[in-house]
């Protein structure tokens, strides 16, 4: 990673890392009686070990001037590795927590291993660790290729990638220690949030400067989605996390939002994290890796523009559908419901656009498991956006809210859409990034595909069943007009589904491990693509199609 940096870059890197180290020391000192101090030590170690890494290669040969005539791929490669590492960690935590719901004694007699503390390590691990690293890595790849320009910085891509991972580490280790704001999907405390702002602004500037360097006159639509993801997540993150720490030496803070305002802000954030983190960013992947893999241009570019603005506009209104029948004012609930239903239009436009792109290439979908990953992702995107709009309707929500149906819906999106499009993109990206002939084992891609499909279906169907059953049991009345079931009756009915769900999650985790192994072996063992054809501009063929016709 250091080879691509000039001496000046290396010095800058060391200055930044020294600064991180000093901040770590300061945190450890003022927070020595608090979890904040532990985080100080982690920050110290993070900055210190990276600095040692740079120092070790400090006197290595400098890159030649022609580095600027190549794309900057080193941070992307590291990003792919981090994506897979977080996938395995996050999904493992998911399986563990799922198993705890079926077998509650699957914990140690200590706070860190109970469900309440492990759950955010799962959600943060998969959403931010797995999803976030995948977004950063692919955005670096896509923006360079579609702009025909190298990333506008040598150090800043590393700063963004590693800084983001430091945030994830602080967040997850904090949850084990009980450091949490309790805001769903934004549990990390104030100092980690501040750090993420720094990282995110750098990301924003880097992306914008790279776009400004572009040689293509038009900004390809995938970059629009990445841009919306970066910009809106920044707004959401800052507004939702405004808080007052009780002291600078303590991790605990109190949010500036109270009660009903806080509920609206939290779900405005929560739902738009789904929209702009888990949808916009991954649609960007879809709009680049689908055409590249299928070797067919997107069905309708216009439609992709219309659905872009539709999604950007509509999603922001939808958050209040998480608060139907609560103490939130009625008109806000209705607005949320209306826009959630309208959201179906741009969402299905995107899903339809993807499927129509594949129309005429179904034989490739049949033969190529990678393309099948992307195909299934588009199908699940269509399904879960329909389900989401449906569940946002007030009377439906009366049944579905607070039940496992919501969990099933989230995982239809997170497994079926987000993870499938990510793995499809990774299998497309990895051979071309490392300039390999093909993936190490097409058969293992196939194995992964079926593990992932089976895992997702088992998971989603068991949660649909349990959720609807639970919702119905809560509201069933006897002929005498009394509630027919106690809460406990409904819980007892859940156990078989909880076991099935844990099993489905386990299959999905196994698939991710297979993927990590396959990608690792591709980098280690597959020969470099012949003839350097990957480096010749305008060869007329994408390298991966030449390399992996049958996979």
């Amino acid at each position, binding site marked *: 990673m250091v080879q691509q940096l000039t001496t000046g870059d290396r010095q800058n890197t060391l200055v930044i890392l020294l600064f991180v180290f000093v901040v770590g020391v300061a945190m450890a000192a003022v927070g020595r009686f608090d979890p904040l101090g532990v985080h100080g030590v982690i920050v110290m170690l993070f900055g210190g070990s990276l600095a040692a890494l740079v120092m070790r290669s400090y006197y290595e040969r400098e890159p030649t001037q022609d580095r*600027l*005539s*190549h*794309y900057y791929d080193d941070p992307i490669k590291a990003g792919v590795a981090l994506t897979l590492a977080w996938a395995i960690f996050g999904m493992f935590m998911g399986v563990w927590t799922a198993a705890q719901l079926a077998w509650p004694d699957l914990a140690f007699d200590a706070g860190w291993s109970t469900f309440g503390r492990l759950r955010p390590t799962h959600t943060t691990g998969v959403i931010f660790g797995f999803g976030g690293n995948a977004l950063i890595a692919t955005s670096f790849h896509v923006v*360079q*290729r*579609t702009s*025909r*320009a*190298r990333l506008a910085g040598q150090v800043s891509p590393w700063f963004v990638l590693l800084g983001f991972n430091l945030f994830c580490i602080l967040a997850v280790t904090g949850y084990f220690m009980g450091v949490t704001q309790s805001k769903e999907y934004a549990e990390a405390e104030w100092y980690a949030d501040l750090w993420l702002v720094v990282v995110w602004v750098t990301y924003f500037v880097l992306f914008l400067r790279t776009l400004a360097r572009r*040689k*293509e*006159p*038009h900004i*390809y*639509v995938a970059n629009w989605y990445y841009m919306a993801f970066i910009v809106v997540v920044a707004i959401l993150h800052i507004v939702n996390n405004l808080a007052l720490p009780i002291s600078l030496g303590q991790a605990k803070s109190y949010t500036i939002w109270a009660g009903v305002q806080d509920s609206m802000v939290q779900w405005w954030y929560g739902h738009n994290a789904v929209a702009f983190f888990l949808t916009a960013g991954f649609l960007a992947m879809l709009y*680049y890796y689908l*055409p*590249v893999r299928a*070797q067919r*241009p*997107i069905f309708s*570019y*216009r439609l992709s*523009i*219309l659905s872009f*603005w*539709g999604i950007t*506009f509509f999603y922001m209104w939808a958050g209040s559908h998480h608060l139907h029948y609560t103490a939130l004012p009625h*008109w806000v609930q209705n*607005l949320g419901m209306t826009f959630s239903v309208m959201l179906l239009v741009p969402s299905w436009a995107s899903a339809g656009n993807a499927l129509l792109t594949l129309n005429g290439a179904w034989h490739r979908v049949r033969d190529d498991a990678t393309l099948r990953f992307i195909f299934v992702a588009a199908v699940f995107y269509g399904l879960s956006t329909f389900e989401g709009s449906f569940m946002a309707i007030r009377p439906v929500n009366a049944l579905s809210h607070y039940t496992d149906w919501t969990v099933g819906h989230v995982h239809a999106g997170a497994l079926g859409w987000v993870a499938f499009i990510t793995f499809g993109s990774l299998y497309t990206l990895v051979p*071309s990034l490392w300039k390999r002939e093909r993936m190490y084992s097409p058969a293992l891609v196939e194995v992964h595909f079926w593990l992932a499909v089976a895992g997702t279906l088992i998971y989603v169907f068991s949660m649909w069943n349990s959720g609807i059953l639970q919702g119905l049991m809560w509201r069933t009345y006897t002929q005498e007009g009394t509630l027919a079931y106690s809460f406990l009756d409904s819980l007892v009915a859940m156990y078989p589904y909880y076991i099935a769900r844990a099993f489905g999650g386990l299959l999905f985790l196994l698939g991710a491990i297979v993927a990590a192994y396959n990608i690792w072996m591709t980098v280690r063992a597959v020969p470099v693509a012949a003839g350097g*054809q*990957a*480096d*010749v*501009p*305008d*060869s*007329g*063929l*994408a*390298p991966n199609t*030449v390399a992996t016709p049958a996979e």
Partner: protein
Amino acid sequence: MDIDHDTLVGFAKSWGLFYFIAFSICVVIYAFWPSNRKRFDDAKRNILDGDDRPWQ
């Protein structure tokens, strides 16, 4: 005039809608503007070039 809850709600209910309509008209015009057709066609095809170096 005092800015109270009802004023804000009224504003949200009316101008929010007008804003939305104006916005969508602009987007549709942009997407279907005839001279944009070529740019969009180029954009959707250009990503399939197998180029692996930045343009100088």
